[in-house]
């Protein structure tokens, strides 16, 4: 309710037509329900908490889960950053940012260091996150065992009893077929030495950033109606074999704009002759480096 009062005080800034929305779109009861799920998720790192996902004014697969989590976490003092595959200027990122500008009238930014909440699709920013920052992931399929065991009841039991042998069968098949672990995104992790978790389709390059991160990491899956979380400074390990250890590989190139050697790169095809160049997927990181030069 506090938010509502604060919001009303800020009313002067809000265009008249937007007053029909509650602060950050969702009604207060729904936000309370989601916050309860979030607290439970933070108490049991990696455990998938069911929640009653609402219909959002956007299609499934566009971040309905992430938007609901962000909406429940936002206060009037928050500064929001939204990225899609690392970029601040793609359709998904721009429209979600505009959505919250319109419904919550909060400040937004493209700078990782200035944001208090970062909603992300498929990347973790290159810049190190700090305490008191919240990273909200958009998750398409929260169940890491889904492709191996189709029965939801059975996967629930497997999680409860830590029966994770089958997860390694997947890696075994990878090595047997390709000589190395082929999984390059949504690479499964073990959280706090207990639950196997799907880190959403981030590249495995980002997996090590989840480990011992000072920020709060929240995961929302709207269609699948699940929320899970990693509290700050939690151990997150990528599963592997002793003789085939986890390798957070990246393309062996430099960013052709900023020259960065250690950021995650997007491959861009530049003409019809098969020429290509590589640029940072994190646009804010790349721009910042160019400015610093």
């Amino acid at each position, binding site marked *: 309710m506090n938010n509502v009062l604060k919001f009303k005080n800020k009313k002067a800034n809000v265009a008249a037509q937007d007053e029909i929305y509650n602060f950050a779109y969702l009604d207060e009861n729904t936000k309370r329900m989601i916050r309860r799920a979030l607290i439970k998720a933070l108490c049991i790192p990696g455990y998938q908490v069911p929640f009653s996902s609402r219909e959002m004014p956007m299609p499934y697969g566009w971040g309905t889960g992430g938007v609901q989590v962000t909406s429940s976490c936002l206060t009037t003092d928050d500064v929001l950053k939204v990225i899609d595959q690392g970029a601040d200027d793609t359709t998904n990122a721009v429209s979600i940012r505009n959505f919250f500008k319109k419904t919550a009238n909060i400040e937004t930014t493209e700078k990782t260091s200035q944001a208090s909440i970062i909603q992300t699709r498929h990347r973790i920013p290159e810049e190190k996150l700090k305490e008191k920052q919240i990273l909200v992931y958009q998750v398409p399929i929260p169940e890491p065992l889904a492709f191996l065991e189709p029965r939801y009841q059975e996967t629930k039991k497997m999680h409860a009893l830590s*029966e*994770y*042998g*089958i997860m390694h069968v997947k890696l*075994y098949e990878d090595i047997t077929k390709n000589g190395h672990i082929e999984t390059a995104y949504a690479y499964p992790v073990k959280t706090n030495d207990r639950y196997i978790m799907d880190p959403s389709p981030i590249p495995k390059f980002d997996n090590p950033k989840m480990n011992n991160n000072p920020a709060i990491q929240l995961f929302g899956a709207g269609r699948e109606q699940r929320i899970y979380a990693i509290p700050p400074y939690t151990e997150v390990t990528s599963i592997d074999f*002793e003789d085939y250890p986890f390798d957070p590989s990246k393309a062996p190139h430099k960013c052709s704009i900023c020259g960065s050697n250690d950021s995650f790169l997007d491959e861009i095809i530049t003409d019809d002759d098969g020429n290509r160049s590589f640029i940072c997927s994190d646009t804010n990181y790349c721009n910042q480096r160019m400015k610093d030069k």
Partner: protein
Amino acid sequence: MEPILSVQNLNKYYGDQVGCKNMNMTLYPGEVVGVVGESGSGKTTFINSISGNLNPDRGKILINKDNEIINFLEISESLKRLLIRTELAFVHQNPRDGLRLDVSAGGNISERLMSIGQRNYGNIRQTIFKWLDKVEIDKSRVDDFPRTFSGGMLQRLQIAKNLVTSPKIIFMDEPTGGLDVSVQAKILDLLRKLVRELNLSVVIVSHDLAVIRLLADKIIVMKNGEAVETGLCDQVLDDPQHSYTQLLVSSVLQV
């Protein structure tokens, strides 16, 4: 010597229907017990009830694990599933029920190894080859999918998948059902070899008296959900006392 598995007064009902009633059995290490009877006599209900696939209504199942007696029906779900993964094995009649068809042969064999915590690909691979050799599947087939295997090979693969963690008690439900006689003979040969080599304790269900005679030391004859005759295999089959056992023995086809 202590029995490794002892079943006392086991009952399983489906509503008013009797699944199996007042069943008793003791299985000693290295021993093979055969359960025979006609279709619908409760053989499969019995083996499913004592292997953790079904929950019996009454009775006791005691498993001896390293001289510690475990009451199988009263332990927690997690311990039960751990026992099923490590100490027990179940060979299904249809190998497709016991295998993952979209995982390679090697992957199938390795699952139990990884579920008990083995994390070294090289070692796991070695164990897989050892077991393919034991069940007489060519090593070159290790990365092929089970769906490319013949019925007999599938059954041998299922046996390897189950025995890889050296379980103490093996349950087999008609392991040679649906296979032609020459393949059947091969599987039986293999089973007999493994039972002797690894000193396995086995409960085997079959309607085929020849299979039981070849493998089993003791026999339980079931009819309408009850055991009508029990005893040493040769004794019961050579000198059947109960009229139903007499009928069963006399119905065996001679070539």
